[in-house]
C-alpha cells in the first residue's frame, strides 16, 4: 500500500531490524497465538543473546523451542516452561536464565507498559517466596508489592486478521498475550494470513488499533506441522 499509513512489510526485512542482544516479546499460550513464521525467520537470520518474553517456552520443536535449542536465547522471562523439557534442562544446567512470574502478573506488567504506567501494586504472592525480589509498600496496614511494568524492544505478534494500515484482530485462545504485547513493545511486528485492505475491518471490531503497530507481514496459513491448523469459520 503506497500511503504514508501503510504498514505492510517483507518478512526478512522486518526481522532483520532485530539485533542480537534485543529483548523480544512473543505472543502465544502454547501453540495458539505463537507467531511461527516470524520465529522461523528469526532462527534463520541467526540473532543471538536474545531476551525473550513469552508465557511459556512452547515445545522443543516449535515456536521459541528451536531458538532455545540453538542457544540463541540468553534469558527467558516467562510463567511456566514445563512443556519444554529441553528448556527446563537448560535452566537447571544454568545455560538459560529463566525469570518466572505468576501468569496474570506477567500479563498485567506487559499491559501496564502498554498503558504507559511505571507499574502497579498487587497483593498477589505476598507471603510466598516471590516476595523476596520485590519492593513492598505498607498502606493503611496492608502490604502491597510493587510490580514494575515490563516493556521490550520488539514484539512478535500473531494476528488472525490485519489490515494494511496495521489494525489487528485475534481469535479464540490465540488472543492471550498478543494484544498486550502489541501495546507494550517499542517496535511491533505482526504476522497474519489474512491481510485485508483498510476498510475491511469494522472499526468496532478492531482489537489493536493501528497506531500501536509498526509492521504487518502477510504469511501463509499456519499448518499442522507447526502444531496448528486453522479451521476456517
Amino acid at each position: 500500500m503506497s500511503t504514508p499509513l501503510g504498514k505492510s512489510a517483507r518478512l526478512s526485512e522486518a526481522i532483520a531490524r532485530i539485533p542480537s542482544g534485543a529483548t523480544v516479546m512473543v505472543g502465544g499460550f502454547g501453540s495458539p497465538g505463537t507467531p511461527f513464521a516470524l520465529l522461523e525467520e528469526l532462527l534463520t537470520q541467526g540473532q543471538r543473546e536474545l531476551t525473550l518474553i513469552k508465557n511459556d517456552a512452547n515445545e522443543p520443536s516449535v515456536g521459541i523451542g528451536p531458538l532455545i535449542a540453538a542457544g540463541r536465547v540468553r534469558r527467558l522471562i516467562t510463567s511456566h516452561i514445563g512443556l519444554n523439557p529441553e528448556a527446563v534442562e537448560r535452566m537447571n544446567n544454568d545455560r538459560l536464565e529463566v525469570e518466572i512470574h505468576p501468569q496474570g502478573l506477567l500479563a498485567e506488567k506487559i499491559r501496564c507498559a502498554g498503558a504507559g504506567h511505571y507499574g502497579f501494586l498487587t497483593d498477589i504472592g505476598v507471603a510466598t517466596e516471590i516476595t523476596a525480589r520485590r519492593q513492598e509498600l505498607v498502606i493503611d496496614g496492608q502490604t502491597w508489592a510493587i510490580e514494575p511494568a515490563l516493556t521490550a524492544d520488539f514484539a512478535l505478534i500473531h494476528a488472525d486478521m490485519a489490515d494494511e494500515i496495521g489494525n489487528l484482530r485475534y481469535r479464540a485462545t490465540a488472543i492471550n498475550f498478543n494484544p498486550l504485547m502489541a501495546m507494550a513493545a517499542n517496535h511491533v511486528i505482526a504476522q497474519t494470513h489474512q491481510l485485508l485492505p483498510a476498510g475491511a475491518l469494522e472499526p468496532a471490531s478492531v482489537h489493536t488499533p493501528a497506531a500501536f503497530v509498526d509492521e504487518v507481514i502477510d504469511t501463509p496459513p499456519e499448518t499442522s506441522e507447526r502444531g496448528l491448523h486453522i479451521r476456517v469459520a
Partner: protein
Amino acid sequence: MSPKHQRILRRAEREIVPGQVVNLGIGLPTGLFHYLPARGGVLLHSENGILGSQLLIDAGPPDLEMIDAGGTPISVMPGASVFDSAMSFALIRRGRIDLSFMGAFEVDSAGNLANWRIPGRFSPGIGGAMELAQKARRLVILCTHTDKRDAPKIVERCQLPLTAPRCVSRIITELAVMDVTSAGLRVAEIAEGTDIATLREQTGCELHIDPDHLGTF
C-alpha cells in the same frame, strides 16, 4: 484413570453448584471436565482466555486455536467468550471465580497450599496457580492422600514453597473429605471401606473427627 482418582473426581463433582464460574487446575482436576453434566449450567473458566469451555463434542477436526490451559482442544458452549490474558486474570483477581479446583504437593492444617515447586526436583514455573489459589472464592484441593513414596500430603505445616497462604477451604482425597477450620482440619466425610485409624495413620497432622457427624462417600 485409577480407582483412587475416580473416587476423588466423583466426589468432587458434587461440590459444583449450578450457576457457578469454575476453574479446573492442571493435573487431576482437569479430569472433572468429563464428569460435568452435559446440560451445562456452569461456566468453566480457562486461564488462557475462555469462559464457557466444554468437552470437545464435534466429530470433525478440532479447532487447534481453541485449547484449554493444558493444551487440549476443547469446544465452547453457547454463551462462551474469549479474551486476552490480562482480562482472564482480572476476572480471577477481582474474585469472580466461584470455585477453583487444584492439586497439591502439600496442604496443611492452616489451609496453606504448596503445589508449584519442589526445590531441586520440580520447578517449571508458576502459571496461574498463585492467583487462582489466592483469589478464588472457594478453593477445593483434589489430591491423593499420600504421595508416591507413601508420605502424607496432609501435614501440620507445609515445608515446600507456598503457592498461597491460608487459601484452602476443603480437601478431597480418596480417603476423606476434610474442611479447614480455625481449629484445624475437620473430617466431614470418610471414604466407604476406610476406617478412622487408617485415615489418621496416613495423615501428617491432627484431624478433628466427630463420629456422630461423619458422612461417607
